[in-house]
């Protein structure tokens, strides 16, 4: 207590002062607490986002690589089989496609057993049917394949009549609600209908794409959305998203393709085939009162609504890769080789060395720098080269790719160029066959489905996603002015609050999948357009659990999930990390500084994450700031080893597709010699495994190659290749799990090498 003066006044004053000081102290502490929480929250978000986009990028690369091979090396009779192979690689499931695509679904022949208790549909659909679907799915029922196909068939019939750009007027319905990405999260859709009301003639809805992938109820969401579209065709509108695309669906490990095949074991492939059709008939955009433009991704400086209105949108089956109408390409298809006109300005696949690609063509070869109008999505491959020349190039390109894997990933984009559409000059010999879109048409659609807004002006390639570009506020302004629009609504990007305004409130991002990365990671939102089209946002989080947690607990949960994913990624690059660490450990002490750790990790993973901030979560406290990297890697491995990992190993995947091994062999045997050199084998394997998140050391691969080479002549021939897999089958059946494929640092041969299984 105070000393000296005995007046009550004085001691009361001192008391107050102490209280004040104490409170101030606690405030200081609290502010720091909150700041640290916020930092953790942001870092967690970065982790999720960067892993998601990096994963997309990897898969695009792999897909490009195989597609290219498919186009140029495999005789056409093998194309279909390779298509199957690719499908299986990404879905890990048997999915033998018939080479003939059946145009009409013969759903009528499908019998529905009496024991089926799920919803039954009859057409034309009534509102009650649609509502019943919601209820049925809420009760976890599954719609019978017959009704699925029937609904898809009717949906397609309806979609074909729709224009590319839906035009909606608010004078017919009182309110319009726009929803963003759902990504298979049925809970969110049900919540929206519950909170906002079911669709009706007075209540319009626009769903802005990305209905499928990642979540587990993509099928059910599609059924509901299509059903309402058929019931209220004037009031219920769907836009296509970049995920309404069978190629994109294939890319996801827990994606839509897999969901369909799991839920519909007998009719799955037919459903997927039909969906391919339905997806490409989805409209591209919706325009409200000629004032508000709604589309999935974004716009570019060349976005041309009049052109978009006119194109045949169903020609663009996939934005992933597209054969566009080009003279050279047609010739390529017909003859499969031949050196053609150098005047054909062809884009170059990313993995071909630029300098050797085309004879004297005036291409802008600076594609490895971020260029204003460059596009990072996979562009149709070039055509004008000699078969042998290509073969040589592809082989060296594999080497190049491996080199590049170790360095900063360049752009995925191939050469960029503006090619005037050649529609007029093309004498189409493809009468009756689906005509291909022109380069420009394709690009317009890719822009709409893939672009993201950015704060800076102009356009910039999107290297993170591997598809589309960024567009700045000036691009938005230009477009709005050109077509006399008020603002733009788009989706495509997950936002912590479920929505975000940018470009001076002229662009609204709306994202309706709450808890997208993890429970508690973000809210979902939808926007209602009121009179004068003013937006009114509603947010939600469709998970009761999060409401009972404190903010700190919520953040910790999401953070832990992100860190787990990150550790998995680190593990997958163990051998690259080890060699990078060793570079910093010149004296071979086994220790590196934490600063070096951060630098090394970034140079291997290229995720652009704040490693120093995350360090305490990833690295256990180390003595005097030094890290024993070998034991750190070992600990990572210990966490990861689980049955799941083993099952997803590349070897298992290939084994499951052993009937296609001959095709695989031919891919690797790029010079058609009938033999694979150990080198070719090693390079291809390295590429495959790095893309599939399985870490296999160089030693392991060499061992694998050598062990497959039974007669030890330095080459693997097809028989040895097949024999190796027969042995794999044998030992797997014998349940020899102790030697099943795992990725650790193999010290000597024989331990934990994938071939040992």
């Amino acid at each position, binding site marked *: 207590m105070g000393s000296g003066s005995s007046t009550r006044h004085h001691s009361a004053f001192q008391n107050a002062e102490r*209280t004040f000081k104490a409170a101030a102290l606690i405030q200081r502490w*609290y*502010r720091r607490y909150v700041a640290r929480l916020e930092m953790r929250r942001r870092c967690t978000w970065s982790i999720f986002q960067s892993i998601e986009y990096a994963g997309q990028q990897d898969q695009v690369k792999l897909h490009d690589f195989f597609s290219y091979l498919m186009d140029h090396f495999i005789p056409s009779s093998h194309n279909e089989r390779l298509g199957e192979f690719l499908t299986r690689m990404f879905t890990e499931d048997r999915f033998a496609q018939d080479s003939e695509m059946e145009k009409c679904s013969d759903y009528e022949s499908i019998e529905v057993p009496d024991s089926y208790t799920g919803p039954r549909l009859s057409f034309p659909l009534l509102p009650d049917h649609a509502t019943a679907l919601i209820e049925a799915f809420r009760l976890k029922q599954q719609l019978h394949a017959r009704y699925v196909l029937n609904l898809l068939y009717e949906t397609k019939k309806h979609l074909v009549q729709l224009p590319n750009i839906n035009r909606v007027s608010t004078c017919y319905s009182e309110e319009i609600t726009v929803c963003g990405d759902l990504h298979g999260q049925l809970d969110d859709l049900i919540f929206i209908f519950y909170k906002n009301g079911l669709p009706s003639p007075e209540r319009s809805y626009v769903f802005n794409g990305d209905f499928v992938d990642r979540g587990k109820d993509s099928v059910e969401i599609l059924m509901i959305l299509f059903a309402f579209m058929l019931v209220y065709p004037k009031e219920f509108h769907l836009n296509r998203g970049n995920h309404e695309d069978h190629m994109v669906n294939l890319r996801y490990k827990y994606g839509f393709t897999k969901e369909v095949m799991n839920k519909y074991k007998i009719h799955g492939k037919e459903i997927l085939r039909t969906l391919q059709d339905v997806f490409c008939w989805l409209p591209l955009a919706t325009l409200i009162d000629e004032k508000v433009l709604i589309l999935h991704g974004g716009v570019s400086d060349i976005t041309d609504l009049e052109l978009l209105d006119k194109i045949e949108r169903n020609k663009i089956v996939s934005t992933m890769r597209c054969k566009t109408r080009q003279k050279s390409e047609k010739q390529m298809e017909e003859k499969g080789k031949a050196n053609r006109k150098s005047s054909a300005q062809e884009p170059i696949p990313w993995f071909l060395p630029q300098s050797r690609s085309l004879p004297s063509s005036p291409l802008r070869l600076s594609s490895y720098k971020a260029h204003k109008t460059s596009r990072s999505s996979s562009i149709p491959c070039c055509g004008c080269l000699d078969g042998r020349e290509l073969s040589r190039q592809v082989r060296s390109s594999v080497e190049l790719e491996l080199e590049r894997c170790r360095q900063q990933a360049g752009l995925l984009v191939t050469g960029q160029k503006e090619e005037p559409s050649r529609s007029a000059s093309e004498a189409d010999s493809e009468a009756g066959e689906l005509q291909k879109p022109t380069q420009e048409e394709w690009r317009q659609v890719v822009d709409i489905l893939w672009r993201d807004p950015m704060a800076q002006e102009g356009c910039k390639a999107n290297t993170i996603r591997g598809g589309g570009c960024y567009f700045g506020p000036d691009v938005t302004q230009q477009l709005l002015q050109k077509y006399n629009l008020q603002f733009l609504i788009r989706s495509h990007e997950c936002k912590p609050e479920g929505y975000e305004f940018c470009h001076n409130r002229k662009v609204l991002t709306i994202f309706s999948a709450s808890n997208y990365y993890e429970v508690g990671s973000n809210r979902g939102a939808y926007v209602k357009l009121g009179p004068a089209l003013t937006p009114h946002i509603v947010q939600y989080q469709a998970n009761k659990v999060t409401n009972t947690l404190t903010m700190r607990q919520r953040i910790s949960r999401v953070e832990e999930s992100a860190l787990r994913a990150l550790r998995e990624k680190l593990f997958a690059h163990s051998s690259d990390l080890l060699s990078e660490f060793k570079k910093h450990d010149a004296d071979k002490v086994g220790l590196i500084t934490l600063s070096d750790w951060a630098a090394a990790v970034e140079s291997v993973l290229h995720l652009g994450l704040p490693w120093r901030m995350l360090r305490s979560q990833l690295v256990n406290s180390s003595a005097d700031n030094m890290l024993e990297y070998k034991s750190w890697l070992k600990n990572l491995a210990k966490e990861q080893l689980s049955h799941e990992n083993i099952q997803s190993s590349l070897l298992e995947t290939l084994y499951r597709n052993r009937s296609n091994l001959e095709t695989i062999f031919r891919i690797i045997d790029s010079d058609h010699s009938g033999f694979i050199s150990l080198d070719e084998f090693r390079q291809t394997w390295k590429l495959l495994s790095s893309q599939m998140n399985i870490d296999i050391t160089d030693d392991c691969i060499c061992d694998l190659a050598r062990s497959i080479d039974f007669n030890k002549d330095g080459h693997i021939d097809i028989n040895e290749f097949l024999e190796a897999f027969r042995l794999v089958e044998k030992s797997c059946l014998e349940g020899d799990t102790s030697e099943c494929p795992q990725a650790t640092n193999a010290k000597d041969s024989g331990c934990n090498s994938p071939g040992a299984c």
Partner: protein
Amino acid sequence: MADEKDRQEIIVAEFHKKIKEAFEVFDHESNNTVDVREIGTIIRSLGCCPTEGELHDLIAEVEEEEPTGYIRFEKFLPVMTEMLLERRYRPIPEDVLLRAFEVLDSAKRGFLTKDELIKYMTEEGAPHSEMAALENLPRKGPLGKTM
């Protein structure tokens, strides 16, 4: 002497990287600027614990001549580095924090109710608005338990 200088350089280099990382987390436009309202969060997450008044002074130091609402990295870096080197605004040691709570807990119960804490935070000390967010804090157990 040379060694000491080297060591110093290494430390500074490491600080620079740390500061850059923290800054980039809030640099949404990737143009080396952050919103001035996030500066407090960045500084605090780097381990410094200024009061609001001290923070205002810091902001004045790193702001542009004509405040734009954004802080540039080039101006922020040297100031922040200095702060870390001098170990300014160190976080409060736990025992001091504990005593602060004890001061507020005049009845010596060993805890503060949520309402009391909010009352103290919003009425005492320096003015601020975010103290209302204290709602989110789990109820503090017996003093001496760290949160």
